[in-house]
Structures are given as structure tokens and as C-alpha cells.
């Protein structure tokens, strides 16, 4: 069975009188170990779909299995616990807690899991080295560049060894050079660790790295192409 199995997901947003049909019956299947891009223009529903897969949001209808769990039936507390141990997140911006150092940010999720300080700090330092930030563990986010901050987010997303990393436009705030090296990093982590990545973007650079690209338009999957 696929790691992510979404069938006929529908999601409508209502703000006052205005209704927006964000997802119009999206079906999607992502295999374990995949490096998949979710492409589509602005407003096509990429963030909405990632949020639903990441259990941050719930659809009106459809079925969704992530890592073998019927996540739509989980309670809020169960979803929080599920996210903590099964999903890593990389957002477009504001990924880090600004009063924590790089090491503390990476270790934070393991601290939530109750892992001892020594162990989580060791994991954090190893991951920081892996994302190329060796020796920067004591810096606060505001002492780091945008690209470095995104690398820390990637390191944090991997700290709990999740089944899947969901990245919502991770390169959107980076220049193309920095974006390229972030994509290379994620691709490399996908290959060495086998972690599944689902990355939303309309950045051609991202799509170039993806092994599978899912195109969204007006809340519908257009085609399922392999690159």
C-alpha cells in the first residue's frame, strides 16, 4: 500500500458570503521513498492539500490514509501525536521558534517526545552537520540567512525520523542558487535516509529535482506524470 493514499478529497472554504472550492475531488498516491513535487499555480490548492495530508486540516469528504492510518478518524490530540512522530514539516517561512537556538529548534520535536537532553542534542548536532550547518548550533534564527534557516527546518523535520516530510514552497523565499542547494540537500536526504518527501511548488527548479510531479489546477489533479 502507498504511504499516502488520498481518494476524492474535497475541501471548501467559506469566509462570510464567499465560498472557495479549494479541492474538487483530489486523488493522490505517494509511495514510500518517493520524492514528489506538487505543482500548480497560485490558488490551485497545494497548501490546502498538504495541510490535509499533514492532518492540520480536514476535508469535507474523501478518504485519506497516511502511513497506514486512517487519519481522518483521529481526534485532535491523536492528530497532534501523529504529526509529532510521523510527519516532518518545512514551511515557506517562519519555520523556526525565534527565541531558540538552531540546536534547540532541531531538538525541540524530540523534546516534545520526551527524549533526554543528551540524546536529542546529539541527534540535533548530527543533523545540523548533515545539512551543512556544522558549528552553527548556538546561533539564533535571526543570526542565520534564509537558506540556513530552511536547512535548519529540514534538519528539524528529520529529527524524529518521520515517515514523510511535507514541504510547502520551501524555496519560495530563497534565491535560485540557495534554492537549488536546498533541493539538492533534500534529494540527498531522500536517497540516503529513504525518507519520503512531498514538496509543493510552482518553482521549475523544484520540479526539475522531483521524480514524480503531481499537477494541481483549480482543485483538481491534472495529470500524473513522471519525470
Amino acid at each position, binding site marked *: 500500500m502507498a504511504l499516502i493514499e488520498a481518494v476524492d478529497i474535497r475541501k471548501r472554504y467559506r469566509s462570510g458570503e464567499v465560498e472557495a472550492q479549494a479541492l474538487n475531488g483530489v486523488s493522490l498516491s505517494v509511495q514510500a521513498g518517493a520524492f514528489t513535487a506538487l505543482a500548480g499555480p497560485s490558488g490551485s490548492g497545494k*497548501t490546502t492539500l498538504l*495541510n490535509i495530508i*499533514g492532518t*492540520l*486540516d480536514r476535508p469535507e469528504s474523501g478518504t485519506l490514509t497516511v502511513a497506514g492510518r486512517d487519519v481522518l478518524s483521529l481526534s*485532535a*490530540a491523536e492528530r*497532534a*501525536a*501523529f*504529526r*509529532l*512522530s510521523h510527519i516532518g*514539516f518545512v*514551511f515557506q517561512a*517562519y*519555520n*523556526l*521558534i*525565534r*527565541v*531558540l537556538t538552531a540546536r*534547540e529548534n532541531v531538538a*525541540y*520535536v524530540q*523534546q*516534545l*517526545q*520526551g527524549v533526554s537532553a543528551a540524546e536529542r542534542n546529539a541527534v540535533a548536532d548530527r543533523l545540523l552537520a548533515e545539512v551543512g550547518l556544522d558549528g552553527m548550533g548556538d546561533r539564533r534564527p535571526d543570526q542565520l540567512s534564509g537558506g540556513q534557516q530552511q536547512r535548519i527546518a529540514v534538519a*528539524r523535520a528529520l529529527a524524529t525520523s518521520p515517515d514523510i516530510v511535507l514541504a510547502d514552497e520551501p524555496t519560495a523565499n530563497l534565491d535560485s542558487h540557495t534554492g537549488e542547494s536546498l533541493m539538492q540537500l533534500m534529494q540527498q536526504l531522500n536517497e540516503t535516509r529513504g525518507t519520503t518527501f512531498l514538496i509543493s511548488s510552482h518553482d521549475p527548479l523544484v520540479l526539475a529535482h522531483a521524480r514524480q510531479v503531481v499537477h494541481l489546477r483549480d482543485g483538481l489533479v491534472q495529470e500524473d506524470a513522471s519525470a
Partner: protein
Amino acid sequence: MFDLSIYLKLGWRNLWLHPLRTGLTVAALALGIAALTFLSAMNDGWLQQIRTNFALTMTGHLQIHASGFQQTLKLARHIKDPAQVMQALDGLAGIHSVTSRLRVSGLASVAGANAGALVYGVEADKERHLSRLAGFVTQGRWLLDSDDRAVVLGDGLADRLQVALGDKVVLMAALDNGDIASEVFRVRGLLHSGVLDIDDLAAVVPLGRAQQWLDMGQGVTDIVVRADDFEQVTGLVDQLRQRLHAGDGSQSAAADSSGYEVMSWSEIDPMAEQWSAFADAYTWIVLAVVILVVLAEVLNTMLMSMHERSREFGLMGALGVRDSQMFFMVIWETVILVSVGSVLGFMTGGWAVWHFGKVGIDLSQFAVAFSFMYMSPVIHPLLAFDSLLGILGAAILGAVVAGLFPAWKAARLDPAAAMREV
């Protein structure tokens, strides 16, 4: 659960993200707590003074009467055998001194003037050790054990009678049998205590002469005990009641008069206790108001801080922080904020209490009003442990209350929506 250190770390660092804002809130808190600490210590200080002044001016810490005397003030209800009571007092720990009195209301008269008087027959020397009466003498002298027909008058009473030192005064009182007995005394001293009831009414004479004049034999009406301190009073009262099979003075006037009543200072005159209750209530109202104002400030600070960090809260929620954890994180942050303010407040207030406790606060301008309440014109603040705990408890409770709303908001924050906000 995960370890608390992350709450402390996050809370502490987030507070100092805005040093000015946090500093102002902490300063307001500290000021409020310091003011409360000082106010409460003032209160405790003058209540302690009132109690002490009340007990030492005249009343003593406890009194033993024949049962029913305090309610009737009838000479018939007197202690026939004071030695028996003295025996009961023997060997009790915590007693500073004991004296006997004969107390009766009567009339003082000189040629051309009369005035109601409260006559006290006292043991001159023992009285000097027990109460402050002797110390209040402003003209002439206190009684000597060798005095016979000498009287020390309250200055208000002397004024009304238009008498001076050396003048003669006739004191009259009704005996048990309804006869009026009178006796001539010579004024040897005038006293001013500041307490109206004493200054305007007291006529203090030697006990022996009073007993003869009133045909009382060895009888007295009050055996007055001064304890080493207030803490001893309850224990002494209990032991004496047991030893003397005595009541508490509340039995009806018709009760059998062969027994005794043992009354503590607060039972004799509930005024001081009522004052204390009133002052407590007053302090708590002020405390509530100050805490309320300060907490509004804390609430405001927390809501501002949360508003700025809503995306960060969203991030935490997305990462897997549970609602309950989010809730406690915010409560903790509030508690940290209030604790910092409280510690500073207690230090400032504590210093002020210590300083003014040493030098006193001089309120002699209002001395007339004060002495009437048994207050001294110089107040020495005194911080009672109970009061300190009260303020601390109120501050922490307030912190939690002020934190509830922001915490509740944090707990029900939708991470997806919070992350979308730009």
C-alpha cells in the same frame, strides 16, 4: 509529558524579546506588590500596637472575675477569696505579672461640682509593673504602697471637677445593700493616657483603702494578668478556666455567682479584634483592586505577545504540541512574568518595611484621633508571615487567572490558519 524546562526557557526568553514592554509590566507589578507588602505591614504593625497598647494601658492580657461581674459590674459579684485564685496562677508559665483591683462606678464630688467616676482600687507597686497607668502621670506622682487616702485622677475628670494637686475629693459608691458609702481622698497625681474612658473617668486609689471604704474585706473584683506575650494568652486562659472551673464571662447575669470567669483581653473588649477584622477587610479590598489593575496589565502584555507570535504558536501546533501543552505554556509564561515582578516587589516592599520598621512612621499630627483607638503616633510596620503568604498567593492566583484567557486562546488556535496569516 515532556520536561518543564522547555516551558521555562521559552517563557523566559520570550519575555525578554521585548525588554521595554516586559520591563514596564514587571515594574508595574513590582510597584503594586511592594505597595501591598508595605500597606499590609503597616496594618500588621499598628494592629499589633493597638493590641499591645490596649492590653498594657489598663486591661492586661486576661482577667479573672467572679462569675457574672463583667456583665453586671456589681460589687456583689466579687472574688471573696483572692488567695484561691492566686494559687491557681501559681506555677503557670508565661506570666509576666499579676495584680488585683477593685473596680466600681461612683461619683466624685468637690464643693460645687460632681462628676461620674470609675474608681479603681489598685496595688500601687504591682500595678506599676503590670500596666502603664503609672507612666501616664503628668502631674504629681503615682500612688505609693504606703499611701492611704490618696487618689490619682484622670486629667479630664480633674478638669471637670476643677481640682488640682493637693485638693480634696469625695468619692461615693453604692454598696451591695444599697447604702451609699463615701470617702475623702487627696489628689496626689493627675494622669493622661489618651484613652477617653480613662482620662475622663478614672479615679485610682489604694486597694486597701478602697476595700475598707466599700466594706469588702479581702474581696477584689479583678485579678489582672499580664502575659509574657500575646501568644501565651489562649493557653493561659484555657489552663485557668480548667483550674478554676471557670466560664468565659458570657454566662447570664443571673448565673450562680460562686464561680469564676476567665476572660482574655479580646473578650473583655472586642473592639481591638473588630478593628483588626475591619483593617484586614480593608487591606484585602485594596489588595484585590491593586491585583486587578496589575493583572489587567499582565493580560494586556500577554495578549500582545501572543498576537505577535500567533504564527509561532501555529508552527508549534503543526509540529505536534498538544492543546493542553500550549495552554500550560502560556500559563507558565504568565506565572514567570508575575513571579519576576513579585520578587522585585517583595524586595522593594521588604526593604521599606525593614527601614520604617526601624525608624517608625511618625503620624503625631493625628495623635489625638489615634490615642483614642489605643494607637501610638509612631507606627512601626511589621510584616506578618500570614500576610506575606496572602499577597504571594493572590499574585500567583492572579497570574493564573490572567493567563487563562490567553492560554485558552492559544489552546484553540488552528495551526493551519495561524500559519497562513501574513
